[in-house]
């Protein structure tokens, strides 16, 4: 058992005194701004950008606070604080988002400075989780653990976080800016649908460098990111991103918020011209000021040193035995557990998608439990995935059965990662002021229809992603089955797309046919699955069969009654 003091070996960046002072000062600054707003000294127009820069939105029912979880990694202590905030200031639950952050939905403005103070106690904040600035840099939820990892993305995500926090030149960009970085063979961070996507890799000499993509994005105009440069050496990592941001800041449109993202700029300039602009800017700025010194990288890398893994055999007798004896456990392992680079360890994904449940929501009690389990089984470290699940990255195979048993008891043991029940859904019209339709009830109905774990495994990999409006926070564009909620004459309808893919074989889904009602949508998913199962060849995932057969058979079945 890993009876490690909470957080001591968690692979997170540890604040120094400068960081703590900065966050504390920012909290007091915001407290004063709130007081001036409540007294009327600041108008709503003046206050709103300040509120947004501190992650506070006004939504349908109350204020919503979006708390930053830098690149999705936190300690058990931080998770316990989130649980406590949920209990004290909200309604006992929170929502994990597609940018690896956490949202609370029932926040009061007058209490927000106190909440931010509480967060600062555990080195957390809500800075730059909104507004036209660089947002949370996201990464692969298996960083530092997965067997297929080549470079630990956390190091560079942390470098970017430090570089872009309150960057004086990039605080008022034309629009929000989202960066994702990963360093594995498989893309678990959806990098090609981000404003900038970075692949960290090694050359033949073993040196670290980066491929930069730019101009990806979802929303009302989805685009796949274009390759801007195949190889940027480590020392130019910050300088190259700076060049991209400068080009965007200079040329990005500010006259129309629907045309203001970098994806529009890249699309309108074209890959070649945009790349030329970036290279020209980079050549101009390249120099000592923007050079990422190896000593800085080494210092940051120390924060993400592997925890003290025990010397274990590659396999565990007790683990293998438990799988044979307990079918439900075996099913969970088959789907929720990923191979670890350290012998005898495993990466466990905790599904926040119980059948019929609200995707990504966790109660304060569940958060506390996850914190305890992280302390007991995973060096006090927890990750948030962009698919709205949680990860305990360093669990001994010996401990997996005990972990699963504890998770099952709290409704956290659903065996559905990557399967049809592992639905991404935005908060939708139940919570969000921007939404046109509800997304959560449809997610619940679909996951309830496909509740049987055996059936889900038989279907295999199939990502359903649901958005309640065209802003696509539910990533519907890159769902193998995507669903977009729309408002047609005051009624909720759902547009189904198929063929989306968020990985390196990136694809935007195509509309299957006319929009349908919520009930029809659930039946439509069932029909799509039946057609897939009837047509698939050995080893084909849904996306593979769809590619081979085309839309025809699916469209025909779904719309047969129309």
């Amino acid at each position: 058992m890993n009876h490690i003091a909470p957080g001591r070996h968690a692979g997170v960046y540890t604040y120094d005194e400068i960081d703590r002072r900065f966050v504390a000062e920012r909290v007091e600054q915001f407290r004063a701004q709130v007081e001036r707003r409540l007294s009327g000294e600041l108008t709503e127009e003046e206050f709103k950008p300040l509120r947004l820069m501190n992650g506070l939105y006004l939504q349908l029912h109350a204020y919503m606070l979006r708390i930053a979880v830098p690149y999705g990694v936190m300690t058990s202590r931080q998770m316990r604080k989130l649980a406590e905030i949920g209990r004290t200031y909200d309604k006992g639950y929170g929502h994990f988002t597609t940018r690896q952050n956490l949202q609370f939905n029932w926040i009061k403005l007058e209490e927000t400075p106190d909440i931010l103070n509480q967060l600062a106690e555990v080195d957390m904040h809500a800075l730059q989780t909104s507004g036209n600035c660089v947002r949370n840099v996201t990464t692969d939820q298996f960083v530092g653990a997965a067997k297929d990892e080549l470079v630990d993305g956390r190091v560079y995500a942390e470098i970017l976080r430090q570089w872009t926090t309150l960057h004086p030149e990039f605080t008022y960009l034309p629009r929000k800016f989202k960066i994702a970085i990963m360093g594995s063979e498989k893309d678990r961070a959806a990098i090609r649908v981000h404003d900038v996507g970075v692949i960290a890799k090694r050359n033949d000499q073993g040196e670290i460098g980066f491929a930069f993509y730019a101009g990806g994005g979802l929303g009302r105009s989805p685009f796949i990111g274009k390759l801007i440069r195949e190889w940027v050496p480590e020392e130019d990592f910050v300088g190259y991103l700076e060049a991209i941001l400068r080009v965007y800041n200079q040329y990005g449109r500010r006259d129309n918020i629907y045309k203001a993202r970098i994806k529009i700029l890249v699309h309108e300039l074209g890959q070649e011209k945009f790349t030329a602009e970036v290279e020209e800017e980079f050549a101009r700025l390249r120099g000592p000021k923007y050079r990422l010194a190896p000593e800085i990288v080494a210092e940051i890398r120390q924060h993400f040193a592997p925890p003290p893994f025990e010397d274990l055999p590659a396999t565990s007798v007790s683990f293998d035995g438990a799988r044979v004896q307990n079918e439900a456990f075996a099913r969970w392992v088959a789907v929720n557990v990923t191979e670890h680079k350290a012998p005898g360890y495993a990466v466990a994904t905790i599904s926040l998608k119980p059948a019929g449940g609200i995707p990504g929501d966790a109660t304060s009690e569940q958060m506390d439990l996850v914190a305890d389990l992280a302390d007991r089984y995973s060096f006090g470290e927890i990750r948030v995935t962009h698919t709205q699940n949680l990860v305990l990255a360093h669990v001994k195979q010996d401990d997996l059965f005990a972990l699963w048993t504890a998770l099952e008891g709290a409704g956290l043991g659903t065996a559905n990662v990557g399967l049809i029940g592992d639905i991404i859904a935005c908060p939708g019209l139940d919570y969000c002021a921007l939404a046109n339709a509800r997304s959560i009830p449809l997610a619940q109905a679909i996951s309830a229809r496909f509740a049987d774990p055996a059936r889900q495994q038989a279907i295999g990999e199939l990502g359903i992603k649901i958005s309640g409006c065209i802003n696509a926070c539910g990533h519907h564009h890159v769902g193998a089955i995507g669903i977009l909620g729309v408002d047609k004459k005051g009624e909720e309808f759902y547009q189904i797309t198929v063929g989306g893919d968020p990985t390196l074989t990136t694809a935007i889904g195509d509309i299957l046919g006319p929009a349908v009602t919520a009930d029809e949508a659930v039946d439509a998913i069932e029909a799509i699955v039946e057609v897939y199962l009837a047509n698939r060849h050995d080893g084909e995932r849904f996306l593979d069969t769809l590619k081979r057969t085309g839309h025809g058979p699916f469209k025909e079945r779904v719309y047969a009654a129309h």
Partner: protein
Amino acid sequence: MALKDAAPKAITGNRLRDGEVVFFQSEGVWVERFDEAALFEGAEAEAALAAAKAQADRDQYAVDVYAFDVTVTGGTRIPVKTRERIRALGPTVRTDLGKQAAA
């Protein structure tokens, strides 16, 4: 005149200090329950909205103040749009939360 234009309207906003959904009842008076909100017809609604906005602003009371359509059938009033129904009650997926829970 289109039926929509003739629809009675209520006025809503979010209370500044805590974000609570509130409804305009009379000058300087805002309520938390939709069934206690004032309803306005036609041009009266425009004037009421302007006055409500001005007062909410002046007193730092509420923000994002707007008017919305309501149907009244047999004495029961219902917001026309799903959005306002959800604002008036709470999330449909958590009926234990929001105004519907306090009812």
